[in-house]
Every structure is written in C-alpha cells, then in structure tokens.
C-alpha cells in the first residue's frame, strides 16, 4: 500500500470587510499595523494630537465564527476590556489608559506603551547569557528582580479585583524606567530593566475569587514553562513576590496547588 501525502486544506478566499471609519479620520496619523495578535490587530496611531501616540486595537470579524456569535463575543470583549482597564487605572495598577472605543465597529483606542514585551526581553537575555558562556542555573540578581516585579504587578491587579484571563509573558510590557526606584531598574544595557505594564485585557474579568486568581497564575505558569523552558524554576520567584503583594495572596497560592492537580488529571483518556 503506497502512502500518499495529504495536502493542506483548501478554503474559499476570504472576503475582508472594510475597516471601520476610525481608520480614515483625517485628524489621525494613518494607523500602521504593529502586530497581529491572536484576536486583534494592533495599530499605532495618534489620539487628538499628532504628537500623542496611541494603540488602536481592532477586532476584525472572524471569518470562521458564526456572525451572531462573533458579534456577541466582540462586543462583550471590547466593553469588558475597557471597563477593566478603567478600573485598574483608577486603582493604580500599571495598565494603558483608555482613550476611545466603538464596540460594534470593534475597536478600542488606548495609550501607547513604549518598550518591549517581557517574552522577547527574556529570550534576548537568555541568548546573551548563552553567548557569554554563563552556565544555566546561575542566579542572576537582575532576572530575580524582574520576576519579583512580575509577581508584584500581577498581585496588585488581583488585589483590586481584576483577573487577566490570558496572563503570558507576551502580555506584559517592560517600559523603560522613568525613574530608578525599587521597582524600576534603569542600568544602561540591561535588557531586563524597566517597569512592568500589563497589557491585553481582552479576556479579563472582574473577580475576587481565589479560584479565578489561581487559574490566572496557572495560565501564567504554563506559558512560562512552555516558552521559557530554562526559566521554569524562576517562576517560584514570581509566586514568592506575588504571595507578599496583598492580603489573601497566600490563600490563592494554596488554591493554585489544587488547580495544578486538576490540570494534571486531564490526561485520563485516549
């Protein structure tokens, strides 16, 4: 029996709907596409003044999703994202400010955050260390401090009653420190320097339940383990800093153990 290769699936061409009017307003700097995330397209544009940069997050209709379901999800996600961002902002959690939105057209305009996502910085750093021939497992103070900042930022967000829903190192920015303080590390040439700013609250919700918080941490832990195999052990530092960040954090950490157990149990059947 000769085995034929099964080729990739052919699909009908996708008809893209026109972009919403916000993309053509004459006062704005034409939006330029920065990245295609899983859910949304992220553009850089300006808000009110040509000198005030902003991020324009557009959730185009998903061709694979039933239109009714698509509209329901898009509306819900844009509104809840804006609500959550406003709440975090009010309570002093480092997140981008909300400028404007249109939930039926599917866009949200927020503050532009300078810097780079933690995932890229972490990989750069791991590569640098490899190039310099430093053995793995040697604890570096700067890395430990970064992990502590991550833990504290997540803790602060949970303390105000927000769970992120998609915590990964791609959803955390390292903004160049505006001041060198206990939370900012601005040594020149240090790729791990900067303030943590949490971004992409597209799956966030408002909750103070230990279960939701623990699941948030679990998602982060798994994302850590799956993208930074060498940084896995450092997640303990994140949890350590998280545990000290607010009252009740230790209960969440206990709950995390349950969530982990449940996650593991999911290998039951074939």
């Amino acid at each position, binding site marked *: *029996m*000769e*085995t034929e*290769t*099964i*080729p*990739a*699936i*052919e*699909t009908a061409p*996708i008809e893209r709907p026109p972009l919403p009017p916000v993309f053509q307003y004459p006062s704005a700097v034409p939006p330029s596409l920065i990245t*295609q*995330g*899983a*859910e949304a397209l992220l553009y850089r544009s300006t808000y009110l003044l040509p000198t005030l940069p902003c991020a324009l997050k557009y959730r185009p209709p*998903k*061709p*694979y*999703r*039933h239109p*009714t*379901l698509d509209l*329901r*999800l898009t509306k819900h996600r844009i509104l809840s994202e804006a609500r959550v961002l406003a709440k975090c902002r009010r309570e002093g959690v480092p997140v981008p400010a909300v400028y404007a939105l249109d939930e039926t057209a599917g866009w949200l305009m927020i503050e532009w955050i300078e810097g780079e996502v933690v995932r890229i910085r972490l990989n750069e750093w791991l590569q640098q260390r490899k190039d310099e021939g430093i053995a793995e497992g040697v604890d570096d103070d700067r890395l430990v401090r970064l992990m502590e900042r991550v833990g504290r930022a997540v803790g602060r967000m949970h303390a105000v009653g927000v769970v992120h*829903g*998609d*915590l*990964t190192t*791609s959803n955390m920015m390292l903004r160049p420190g505006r001041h060198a303080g206990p939370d900012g590390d601005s040594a020149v040439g240090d790729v791990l320097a900067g303030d943590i700013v949490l971004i992409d609250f597209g*799956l966030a919700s408002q909750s103070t339940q230990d279960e939701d918080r623990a*699941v948030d941490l679990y*998602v982060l832990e*798994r*994302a850590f*383990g*799956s*993208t930074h*195999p060498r940084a896995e052990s450092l997640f303990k530092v994140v949890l350590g800093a998280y545990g000290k960040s607010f009252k009740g954090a230790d209960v969440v950490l206990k709950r995390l153990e349950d969530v982990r157990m*449940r*996650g*593991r*149990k*999911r*290998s*039951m*059947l*074939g």
Partner: protein
Amino acid sequence: MIAIGLEGSANKLGVGVISHSPHGKPAQILSNIRHTFVSPPGEGFLPKDTAKHHRSWVIKLVKQAMAQAGVSIADVDCICYTKGPGMGAPLQSVAVAARMLSLLWQKELVGVNHCVGHIEMGREITGAQNPVVLYVSGGNTQVIAYAEQRYRIFGEALDIAVGNCLDRFARTLEISNDPAPGYNIEQLAKKGKVLLDLPYAVKGMDCSFSGILASIDILAAELKANPEQRDPITGEVITTADLCFSLQETVFAMLVEITERAMAHVGSNQVLIVGGVGCNERLQEMMGLMAKDRGGSVFATDERFCIDNGIMIAHAGLLAYETGFRTPLEESTCTQRFRTDEVFVKWRD
C-alpha cells in the same frame, strides 16, 4: 525497518504494520486495520465490555494485518503498543496481547504514548514541518507545540474533552453511535440554521466544556417538552439539528480560538489537527479559514489516521525504536495517565 503497532486505548482496536526506509524516504503503510466496539444508542462504551471486545478481536486483527502487509514474522523488528493514556481495562488487554506476541515471536516491545502517536502520524502523512497541533478526541483536548525534545501542552480542556461533550450530547439525543456519535452529530448539524446562545468558556489557551454540555442538555430537555419552540429573533422552529449546529459552532469556535492564540504565541502559521474530532469537516473548514486569515495553512488527516489506529502506534514506536528506545518486558505496563509532555522526543531536533 518494520514495526507492528497495537492500539486499544478506547473503543477502537487497531493493528497496523509500517515500514521505515533509510535516507528519510516517507514511511510505507503496509496495513492498517481497525475494529470498533459500538455501544447501543443512549449508552457509552463501558471499560469491561470494551476490553472484552479487544480481547476477542486482537488475534484476528493481528493475523489479518500481517497477511495484508505480506510480511513474515522474521521481517518484523519490534512490537509497539499503546502504553497510555486511555481506559484501563482496554489498555491492559492490548498490552497483554503485545507481551504475548513479544514472547512468541521473540521481538522487543516499545510502549508508545497515544497522543505522540497521533502527532507523529499526522506529521508524517501531511508533511507538516513544525505545526501547532490541535489534538481533539473523545478523551483529550490539547493544543501542543514542539520545543526542545518535548511536545509541550500550551492549552487543554480543564474538565471534559470536546469529543466527550459531543458524545454525551449524542447520548442525550439518543442518536446512533455507529459509526461514531460525533459523526452523526456532524450530519445533523449540517441541517441546523438557528444559533442558540450557549456559554463560551475560554481561559487563556485553556477551555472548558462541561458547562456547555449542561446548557445544551437543558435546551434539549426543553425542546423535548415543547417541540413547537421558536427562535425569538427569526421566528423559526427550533429543531434537534439546530441544537447540534449551535453546539458545534460554539465548541469549534473555542477550539479554533485557542489554537490561534497558541499560533500567535509561538509564532507559527501551520496547524495540524489530529484525533477523532479532527475528522469533522466543519472543524477543518473553520480552522482553514482562521489559518488563511493569518497567512498560514491547515493540515488534517482523514478517518484512517484521525480516528485511533494501530499504524500511528507502529510509526511513533518505530521512531523511538530507531533511536534505541526499548520497553523491557518487566516494564511493559500501561497507564491511564500519561501526559504528552512526559515523552522525551529523541528523534526530533
């Protein structure tokens, strides 16, 4: 090199014979035979009945597979069997059969992780290089990507598997389990038009299905009590087909979404769908649309390889065998819990 593979982690018993030629030529499938234990409508397959089915068919299937492959016992290099994950009793009966063959034919054993079997067979048959893998079946729902000698699980179902959700809804509707409950739901869903509101449960790259199953079961009970129900928006009469349609549209949208998120996360634009639910053409179509939107492509296999089969066990086992992996007779156990990321993937860079 030639391997025979025995699979029986759920209600399918599969035996396959594969041949790997040197110099990286594609593997040759010499035979791939399957026999399925089908339970009556409204019922699932029980471990003891399934094990009994496997015990009574395994010898017949092995003989048939060897005859079809046209190879002699002397040509076979190793015997591969499913070590797990799966249902205990069916796994055990197949492991016993594998041990017996090993002693009888004086061949070495290779215990194979069922999930890795699916992934490797999917890669082999489609030629997908380094895809994000969506593994969806009656027992598993995982989004997997390869990194550093492991198939790492990025997202998975936090409660029941997607296939289990579909199978159990088929039981609620008391539709046939032949050839597969999911297949019959798919056929019904093709006639559905009205999209009913169901929970949508995605958490990061994980998802959950038990709440959806509970909701759709309630809707089905309401429909049974009052068959004249109409959709408040369109005024159309709601049917069982609409229930199947709504269920599929919702759960598949969730699966495509978590796959897309994993793709964005690892920066890949290839997707490979494996596992029994991967046969569903609507899921393949939705995944295709998503991938196209991202400038990528989707690979899926047909029922010969999607649904549990022996050839995938033979293939993955032979890959391991070629790197020197062996399962000594004393260690030729099976286990219900065996995570995809526990396997050290020595055969990939």
